[in-house]
């Protein structure tokens, strides 16, 4: 199977839907250990992404991701804006040149995206950031042979849930030290929604 322009568009549309639905929940999570704007930031950004994509006719997956990246970077702000922006930009760079993207190319793109987040955020695994979703998910998907909706869903869910027990050392939650424990990381939860949306898209087409 290969990942198509249509799927790329679907993925972002579904991501937006999930983020809009869970906007308040994401902000509440951020309120507990951050500054309470994560849902607002993400909802603003993904709404703009969908608007941007709607108006265009795409030939390449890479172009969809590039427009998403640019929109996220210029509309989200905060920590999550440059991070998700960088992720999609790196994915776009990796996927350049093909109408559809093979599983291997897709995984390479995701891997570059995750690496971009790490680099931009100067973060590694175990710091209670979205890296703690992106890294384990990419690692598990690398071991599969083809798109697997269930694997995407399950791996992102357990990774997201595991952020609850981590003591933050990056992002605003790090100011709380021990008090950050017992709360999910908001950026990990929104990353989880993005992977759930991906899983839904794959499932719809397989």
């Amino acid at each position, binding site marked *: 199977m290969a990942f198509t322009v249509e799927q790329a568009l679907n993925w972002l549309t579904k991501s937006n839907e999930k983020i809009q639905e869970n906007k*308040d929940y994401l*902000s509440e999570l951020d*309120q507990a*250990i*951050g*500054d*309470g*704007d994560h*849902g*607002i*930031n993400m909802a*603003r950004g993904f709404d703009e992404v969908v608007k941007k994509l709607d108006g265009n006719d795409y030939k390449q997956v890479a172009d969809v991701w590039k427009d998403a990246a640019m929109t996220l*970077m*210029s*509309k*989200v*702000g*905060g*920590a*999550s*804006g*440059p*991070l998700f922006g960088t992720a999609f930009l790196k994915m776009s760079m990796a996927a350049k040149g093909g109408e559809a993207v093979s599983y291997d190319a897709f995984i390479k793109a995701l891997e570059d995206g995750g690496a971009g987040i790490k680099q*931009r*955020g100067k973060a590694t695994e175990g710091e209670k950031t979205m890296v703690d979703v992106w890294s384990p998910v990419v690692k598990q998907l690398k071991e599969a042979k083809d798109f697997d909706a269930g694997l995407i869903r399950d791996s992102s869910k357990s990774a997201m849930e595991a952020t609850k027990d981590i003591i933050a*050392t*990056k*992002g*605003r939650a*790090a*100011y*709380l*030290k021990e*008090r950050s424990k017992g709360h999910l990381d908001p950026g990990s939860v929104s990353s989880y929604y993005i992977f759930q949306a991906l899983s839904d898209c794959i499932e719809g087409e397989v």
Partner: protein
Amino acid sequence: MKKIINDPNQVVTEMLDGVVGAYPGQIKRIPDTNVVTKKDAPVQSKVGIVSGGGSGHEPAHAGYIGKGMLDAAVAGEVFTSPTPDQVFEAIKAVDGGSGVLLVIKNYSGDVMNFEMAAEMAEAEGVDVAQVIVKDDVAIEDRDGRRGVAGTIFVHKIAGAMAETGASLEEVKAVAEKVIANVRSMGVALSPCVMPASGKPSFELGEDEMEVGIGIHGEPGTERKPLASANEIATELTKHVLEDLELSGSDEVAVMVNGLGASPEMELHLVNRKVQGILQEKGVKAYKTFVGEYMTSLEMAGCSVTLLKLDGQLKELLDSPSDAPAFRS
């Protein structure tokens, strides 16, 4: 949520209209952005100084634009870093050929967005330097420290240095000197309410306070029983002094900063005790600032900042500024 606002989603852009409407002779807005610059920007051959961050900290940052201080301020959404494209617009607008210094507060978001803007500017051949303010001693780990009210001293002194015709490197160096010598710590008696969500940033009992808070409504590092002005001043000053390691003959600039809702009367009560502590230690308060300089919407509470001075810093602190929020 009781606020004097219109559409909660338009507060930033409408606020900037209000700021520019108040000082139309001094500042202007770059159309279609949330960037405010000096009216006469760029100043030829002067290093440009750009600061900014999320909104909700007024008078930071647009109030510090003026001769002797900032050339531009970039406003993000409330408590949300501005995006790289906005910062990039500011950089381009104030570059008078001698480069631009970015004053960044140490938050993941600010650092990343400003860094990306710097990369964009450098790609277009603009000389950009960055300094990252991390004055909040509530955070033990030095590299993880937030930038809070001490940022105002960085604006003031870097701005004054740029006015002397110094190079980008020299302006950056003096800004780094301020950062190395400035420490702050704050306490909140009540949370703030973000206009877009309408919810308090945290819940606090009638007899509690949050010690070690930042300026974005994040919870503090410790929750304690509400204390007196003297106790609060003593606790904040103690942490600041422990970290700054002053000796008897040192001179400092003092800032007792209100976070939003606390009456100026209360800030003066805190200042009274801070001055008493410094006197006891034989440390001279060279200059004191009491007021609202770096706020957190309607949060009740305050922060105490000390900046250790030398001859150069004193001179630059004293030199003129016509920024509406910091005239000297």
